[in-house]
């Protein structure tokens, strides 16, 4: 299931945008992440896949500098991730935009330019032009003047992506952007992100609990399970032996009509809930 676009990108990926090295995190005495290692190259589309509770959000928070790892380092553009910057764009999980929030889509995108600075923004032609450009890039021009709270889930995602992209980050992190979307909106968002990764050379790291919707566009996958991570191309990672090692018990990888199903092996006792979990997920894809 390699994508044909993976080839030209792999060449350009000589400079890594993100390097996560031996990152471990324990929260309240519980080991959430254990020696996680992977890199993301410029303009690459990387899926961060794992069941619920695998530590995806924690890992993203570490990359953002919002969570300090117990050990290990995170470097963004070869700089240590202790200082937060505009080099990383972020679309968090389940942002609920209040229908009463007096903000149009274009206002929210504009806030992405300099929302972290003090003071009141002054309107300018350049700002307006930048916002229009960005709304065009995410195909959101038609609802630029609508209150963000009145937009659908997929439309809000587009606006939030534009908000995150307008400061021209080299890396875009999205936490479960498909969680609240119907299948069609989800596919549109993935296609959009893949386009952005290619055209604007922004590396995309997107977390999801299901691998199938991402298969057509992913250059690389980081698979998280039980605090451990395996990374590589989808072919390298979505393998029975790799995932079995990750989960700590036997799992099978089945290919059905171009889709992948990860199911716990028949002999494994403790993995029964996993079977149910993934069977449902695969079914919904």
């Amino acid at each position, binding site marked *: 299931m390699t994508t044909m676009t993976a080839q030209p990108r792999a060449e350009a990926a000589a400079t890594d945008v993100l390097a996560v090295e031996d990152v471990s995190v324990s929260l309240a005495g519980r080991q959430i992440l254990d020696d996680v290692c992977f890199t993301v190259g410029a303009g690459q589309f990387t899926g961060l896949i794992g069941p619920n509770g695998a530590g995806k959000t924690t890992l993203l928070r570490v990359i953002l500098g919002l969570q300090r790892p117990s050990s290990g380092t995170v470097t963004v553009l070869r700089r240590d991730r202790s200082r937060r910057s505009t080099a990383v764009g972020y679309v968090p999980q389940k*942002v609920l935009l209040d229908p009463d929030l007096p903000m149009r889509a274009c206002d929210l995108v504009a806030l992405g330019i300099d929302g972290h600075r003090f003071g009141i923004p002054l309107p300018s032609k350049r700002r307006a032009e930048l916002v229009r450009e960005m709304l065009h890039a995410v195909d959101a021009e038609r609802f630029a003047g609508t209150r963000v709270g009145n937009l659908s889930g997929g439309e809000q995602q587009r606006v939030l992506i534009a908000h995150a992209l307008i400061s021209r980050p080299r890396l875009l992190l999205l936490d479960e952007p498909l969680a609240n979307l119907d299948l069609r909106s989800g596919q549109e968002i993935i*296609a959009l992100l893949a386009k952005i990764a290619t055209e604007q050379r922004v590396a995309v790291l997107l977390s999801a609990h299901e691998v199938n919707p991402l298969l057509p566009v992913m250059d690389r996958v980081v698979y998280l399970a039980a605090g451990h991570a395996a990374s590589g191309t989808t072919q390298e990672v979505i393998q029975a032996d790799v995932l079995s090692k990750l989960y700590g018990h036997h799992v099978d990888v089945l290919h059905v009509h171009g889709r992948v199903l990860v199911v716990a092996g028949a002999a494994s006792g403790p993995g029964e809930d996993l079977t149910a979990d993934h069977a449902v997920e695969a079914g919904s894809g």
Partner: protein
Amino acid sequence: MHQLWTWVFEPGFFTSSPVHVAAGIGGAVAVVCGVTGVFTVMRGQSFGGHALGDVSAAGGSGALLAGLSPLLGFVGLGIVGAGAMDLIGVRRVRGRDLATGIVLGAAIGLSALFLYLATYTGATSGGPQQILFGSIFTVTPGTLPAVMGLSLLALAVLAVAWRPLLLDTVSPDIAAARGVRVRLTGLLYMLALAISVGLSSLAVGAILSTALLIGPAATALRLTKRVGWAVAAACLIGVAATWLGILLAYDSYDWGPSHQGLPVSFFIVAVVFAAYLLAGIPAARATRHQPVAAPPAVPPGELDSRVAA
């Protein structure tokens, strides 16, 4: 024509010195409350604003007992209360109700004590009424500079915190990831809120202070979909309501045979409430007639085209 004029503006309205002071202070307070109120409603902290009103009441009662200026008590204890709420956890949405409830309860208890002692010592007969329900006509001209200074301070704080505050309102996660010092931003907002509520307590009384803070802002948010316009509208509505309330209260001296005027705070709050109800009419119409825009169909080939590219 002249008769109508004198019927609307009772003789002496424009020459009365208490009216001048009231209009000046009321106008300044309404502007500050308009700006702060929009952020308060957007952030869903109306209940917090109300709790600070009760803290102001305790401060005002304490000042009354100690023989100090009520404004000092209103604003001073309000700022302390805001700090306490921040410490208890007003930042976390879950901790917000708790922080507010605890501070509110403690404040009302203090008010009860101070007002009891103030009435008991008998030094001030109308004091409790004054603190809780206010009368902008009794504010002394000497208070004007302090009111203007505090108003400018609150407006300056909000102007500085404007953008990060908006970003934090949209999503605290995004704000933190962008490097916004969310704790500092939240504290600046709470400071502006405490000053606004203190000023509002002086104008319409501590109990009614929330009305002037939330009413015009909530009305404005019904009318516009832009933050800047909402702030401008909230200020205009607040100033109009305050001045109209002052006029009605002034006129009310001639309404009854006893020439006993009705409370000015009542009129201000009544106008604010009426404005809120009126603003609901266009909003309700808009939602009824709003066509549901269907998203344009996406050609099925769009997703696959990337794989083929």
